[in-house]
Structures are given as C-alpha cells and as structure tokens.
C-alpha cells in the first residue's frame, strides 16, 4: 500500500505496459475468437517479464512483489484474457522457490523465457501411496492443464499426513477430461489410475506440503480474484459509458436517479474489493493465518458483493447485457467462474469463520 516513489513509478510502468500489450493483442470485438491463447503472445508476455516477476533473484527472477504480480492479473482480467496466466505468474514461481535449486534454476529459466508452461492441478480426491509411489484419484478443475508442459499436482490436501505437492511433466498416460468453462477458459480434470510416479516428483510431503498446498491455493484464490476484479472494474466503466449514450424516455439512462444509485452501489462494492486485494497482495508473503484470512475474505466478497455488482451492470444495461456479443455478460461469467473455483463461497465463509472465531471462549 505504502510504497516508495520509485516503486510507484515501477508499478505504473509495469501496469501501463501490460495494459497496452493486452489491449493491443486482446482487443474486444464482436467477432473475436473466444480462445486467444496464442504462442506469440505468450512469448511476448515473457519478454515483458511477467513470468520472471514472481521468481526470486537466486532463480534469475525479478523479485517483484504482490502488488506488481496482481496488477498483471488484474489487467489480464480487464480484457477477459483466457490464457492460464494465474499458475505461471503467481503459483509456479512460489513452487519453484520451494524446490531444490539445482532442479529449480533451469525450470525457472524456461518459465521466465516462456518456453514451458505450468498448470495448477487442485486436489479433488487424489491419494498418493507412500510405499508404492502410486497415484490414484481425480483432480479438481485444472485451468490450462491441456496446454501445460508441467503440472503442479496437489495431493491429499485435507490432512497434514497425506499431503504432497508433485511436479509432473504433462503426460498423455494420464487420462484427462478437457472442457471449457463458461468464461471461455479451457480446463481439465485429471484421472490418476494407479499411476506410478518417480520419487523426485514430490516437491514436498507431510506438513511442509500441507502448508505449501494451502499457500498455493490461497494464491490461486487471491490471483483469481485479481483477474475477476479487473474484469469487474472494466465492466463498470463499460456500463457507465453505455448508460451515458443510451436514451430512454427522452433522457440518457445515466440521468435516472435509480440507475445512478445502482451504479454508485456497484462502485462501493468494487472499491471494497480493491481494498481486499491490496490486503491480499501484502498477505501473499505474510503469516499463513493472515494470508488465509485475506484469501477467504476476498473470495467471500467476490462471491457475494462482487457478483451482485456485476449483475447490477447487466440489469441497467437492459437487453444488450444479455447478448453473447456484448462484453458485460462475459464479465459476469468470469466472476461466476472464479467464485466456483478453489473452494465455493460457502466453503470460504466457513473457513473464514474458523479463522476469526476462536474455538475456546475468551478468557
């Protein structure tokens, strides 16, 4: 939040450059393809430093902070980008930092150069047998798993003992169900059917893995919310512009008090979400409890006030807001998607409750 003048200048440069690149390569038009995940764009994103930004210096990274990382995801969200940036900007750098340097350095180099791509494979019901090193079960929804070269696989995340974090090369031996999400992104479920994995695929096990998995999932939540926030903020701007142009009953829609107040309410909700994202950005590197609280508070806010803010934008836009060719419906779908991934709204309400209500009475 408080930053030196120089850091501010860097922030602004990063954000402006990112926004220009995204607007150039990802401009919204009615006929555009819903899938614009092109290899040349990915390489250019790498040249902009997006994938090096989250890596520590010792892995050849730029050691950017949470605010900078989230600003990239926000800007990508603003144009409704659908390539799997989240895992590569925010999650993979964290996982690589936790690895043996000998293995991590070459991977980090390739990540930074845009030569490999990670996908985060959240836990569904995946179990690893320690004795046989065989993997069994079904993953959660893994964004961009089909396009990835490497999978970061969360295993047994519900218990300290059963937890592992695996790094697997993307692998046709694993049965994969690919599907699109309603916001246009591609994702997969991985089915592990008695899959033998090498010993060194486990980046962490037990308590270390458990903590790392919580960290990665909180990062996914916070980063996903940053993308959703960018989409929502862009959506409000689009809506207000439309209201100024659209005339009904002889006056611009923007002049009706009830419409004005609805937009003011959405603005309030968006600004609160911006605040929670600022917290999320510093919480990325804070204590696990504070990080978890920030992540869950964000997710709860997105799933309730965020969705409300977006649906209000559709409402005041009228019929056009319901059409596939217009952008605001896609904003809503992006928010709805993020609200459903990485733990439901009610699950995060329950988690936040556990964190902030002490289980024993106060002394």
């Amino acid at each position, binding site marked *: 939040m408080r930053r030196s003048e120089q850091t501010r200048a860097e922030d602004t440069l990063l954000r402006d450059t990112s926004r220009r690149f995204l607007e150039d390569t990802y401009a919204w038009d009615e006929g555009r393809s819903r899938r614009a995940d092109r290899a040349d764009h990915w390489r250019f994103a790498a040249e902009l430093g997006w994938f090096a930004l989250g890596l520590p210096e010792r892995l050849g990274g730029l050691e950017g902070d949470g605010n900078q990382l989230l600003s990239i995801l926000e800007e990508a969200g603003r144009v409704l980008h659908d390539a799997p940036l989240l895992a590569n900007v925010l999650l993979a750098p964290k996982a690589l930092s936790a690895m043996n340097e000998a293995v991590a350095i070459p991977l980090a180099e390739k990540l930074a150069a845009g030569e490999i791509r990670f996908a985060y494979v959240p836990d569904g019901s995946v179990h690893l047998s320690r004795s046989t090193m065989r993997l069994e079960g079904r993953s*959660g*929804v893994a964004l961009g798993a089909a396009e990835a070269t490497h999978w970061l696989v969360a295993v047994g995340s519900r218990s300290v003992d059963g937890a592992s974090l695996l790094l697997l090369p993307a692998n046709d031996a694993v049965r994969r*169900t690919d*599907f*699109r*999400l*309603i*916001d246009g992104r591609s*994702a997969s*479920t991985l089915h592990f059917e008695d899959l033998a994995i090498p010993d060194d695929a486990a980046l962490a096990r037990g308590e270390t893995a458990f903590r790392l998995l919580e960290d990665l999932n909180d990062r996914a939540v916070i980063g996903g919310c940053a993308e959703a926030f960018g989409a929502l903020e862009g959506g409000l701007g689009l809506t207000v512009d439309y209201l100024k142009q659209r*005339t*009904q*009953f002889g006056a611009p829609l923007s002049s*009706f008090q*009830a*419409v004005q107040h609805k937009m003011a309410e959405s603005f309030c909700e968006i600004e609160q979400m911006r605040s929670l994202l600022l917290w999320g950005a510093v919480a990325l590197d804070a204590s696990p409890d504070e990080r978890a609280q920030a992540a869950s508070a964000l997710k709860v806010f997105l799933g309730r006030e965020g*969705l409300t803010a977006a*649906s209000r934008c*559709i*409402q005041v836009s*009228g*019929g056009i*807001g*319901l*059409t*596939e*060719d217009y952008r605001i*419906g*896609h904003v*809503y*779908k992006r928010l*709805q*998607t993020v*609200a*459903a*991934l990485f733990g*439901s*709204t*009610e699950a995060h*309400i*329950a988690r936040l409750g556990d964190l902030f209500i002490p289980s024993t009475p106060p002394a």
Partner: protein
Amino acid sequence: MDAFFTADEIAFRDEVRAFIRENLPTDLAQKTRDGIHLAREDMARWNTILDKRGWAVHHWPTEYGGPGWTPIQRFIFEAECASADAPPLSVFGLYLVGPTIYTFGSSEQRARYLPGIRSGEAFWCQGYSEPDAGSDLAAVRTTARKVEGGWIIDGSKAWTSEGHFADLMICLARTNPNVKPQTGLSLFIVDMKAKGISLQPVITIDSGHSVNTTFMDSVFVPDDGLIGGVDKGWTYAKFLLSHERTNNAQVHRSRREFTRLKDLAAALPGSGGRRLIDEPAMCRRFTLVEANLVSLEVTVLRILADQTEGREPGPEASIVKIIGSELQQRITELAMEVLGEEGVKVEHEGDSLLAQEAQGWTKRHLFRRVVTIYAGSNEIQKTIIARSVLGM
C-alpha cells in the same frame, strides 16, 4: 397450502394430475427437465395433447375454446403441469395474441387465427420492442404506410423470442407520425414468410439461440392484417399488459425448479458425511427461499381468488412481476452454489446426477438474468407502483 383450496378444487387437482400422468410422454418431460429453450415440435406435441382434452387454451373464454375454469383452477392446472415437467406452452400465442384477437380482432381474424393457437399448429412471436425502444415503447420507429389494399411496414424489431420458428408476428408500428408518440401506433398481424422479412439470430449469454432481431424491409400486410382500429395499438397493448397480471411471476416454474434443486441437494454428498442440503448454510439458504416462494404463491392465489369472485385485483397485482423475477434469479443463484465447480463447466463428464443436472441449471442461471429486465424492467415496475399505487 392445502388450506386454501376447496374440496372441489382438490378433486379437480386429482383429475388434472391423473390426466397428466397418463398423457404426458416421458421423453417430453425429460426434454423439459434438460433444456431451457424447447423446440417448436416438442411444445406443439404437448399442446395438441391438451387440445384434445379441451385444456390447451385454459384461460380463454369458453366461446373461443376455453374450458371455463376459474382462475384458481387455472392456478392448479398450471401448477400440476409444471410439477410434472410438462413442456411450457408457447407464451405469445396463448397469453398475448389470443386475447388480443378475441378482444380487439374482427370475427374473420378470430376464425382464422384462434384455432391454430389452440391446436398448437401456429406459432407466434411478438414485435413490440426495438433496438431504441426497449422499455420505452412510445419510441417505436417501425412505420406502417397505407397503400392500396394494405400497408407497407419498414423497420426492425429487437428481442424477437422464438421468431426463428414463428409463423406469425404481432407487430406494433407507427401509422401516424403527426400525433404524440403513444397515439400514433397500430397493431398488425405479419406473416413471417412475407417478402422483405429477415432475421438475425441473437445469441444470449447462455450461448443459446431463442432470440432474434427482425428486419422488415417494405413488408406488405393486407388490410385484414390490421387489428382493430388504426392508431389504437398502444391502447390494446396496455390493456393486455394490465390484463395478464400473474403470468410474469412464473410461480409454478419456480416451485418446480426449486423442488428439483432441493432434491438435487438432498442427493449430493456434503461435508462430514452429511447430505449437501443438511449443511447448515445450505439448509438456511433453501429455507429463506422457501419463505419467499410461499409468499409469492399466496400472493398469486390471492389475486386469482379476487378474480374468481369477480373483483378487480388490487395493487398487489403489480408486485408479482418484481418478486417473481427476483425469486427466479435467487433460485438459480442457489443452484450455482449447489453445483460448485460443476456449475461453471460448459461440458459435463459422466452420467452422474450432478453432471446431468448441471448444464440445465447453468444455462438457466445465465439466461434468467433477463427476467428482471423484460416485460417492463423491475425499475419500471417500481416507478409504476410508486406513482400509481402510492401516488408519489
């Protein structure tokens, strides 16, 4: 809510229920469960079955083929159809065009158009809204110019639901540009196969196609295509909007969908070995929707009871559009929480109950953003209540 019904009405309900059980094809019920925009032939099939029993146009006067039911009987009939997953009937012919024609049309028009609606053979669409006249119908720009033997219509219509398979359109067009906007409009019957008509599909955010933009380029409508008097269209349109007060509440569809959602949440596992619906937060959310749904049901019943006893519905009639539409959205929002990750997938894997139900709910959830916008947005309804009812 059995306490509301008389013994005769309970007996009537049993009769309806038995008829549906015996006559509703199971594949139609399945399609109704799965889909959101039904195909024309599926709607027509059910319409024909009902027509044979004399129940297709259940709210029309008996002289035009209605069964002579009270409004409460219609409520019961509609509730039973919905709860058995019977396909919806085509809303425009039944609720809009039929009453317009038997109230304002000529006897020739009645003879020519009502039977097709009753039997389900003819499908209609509505041509009221325009790209620049959404909520504000007085801004309609489509013109109808008098020529020898008929009229020439030029303009475009927005949000033409079911236009791509409709046979006929009921179309509001400006016949007199020299009077104040509301008074210069007339209602026409337009053949959708007429020369000069073209349609452009509008894909909605559920990725479905049920809506179109209709372009009319010098479309000729013969003289007998004019409904009632010239320049009277606004009056007719307003009459019908105030006449059909409860259909917009969609109370039966909401009850049916809510029951299905409840069943789904009772079949899915939650955390800690419980059913999903027994998780406290989920149970509480269902319960709050139930309190609102039951209040909507009673509100609709009370309007119909007034009508049954010949009293004009009071101001409560104007609220059912608002509360009914908000409730439809709350139910699908709850569905998204029930579905979790499955709810945001476009394609679903396997034949689990969850996978089967997910697609329909997701599409409904997205498409239902429309219900607070169409048929007079809820903002417009609130202004009407404030002005007409509260006198503000």
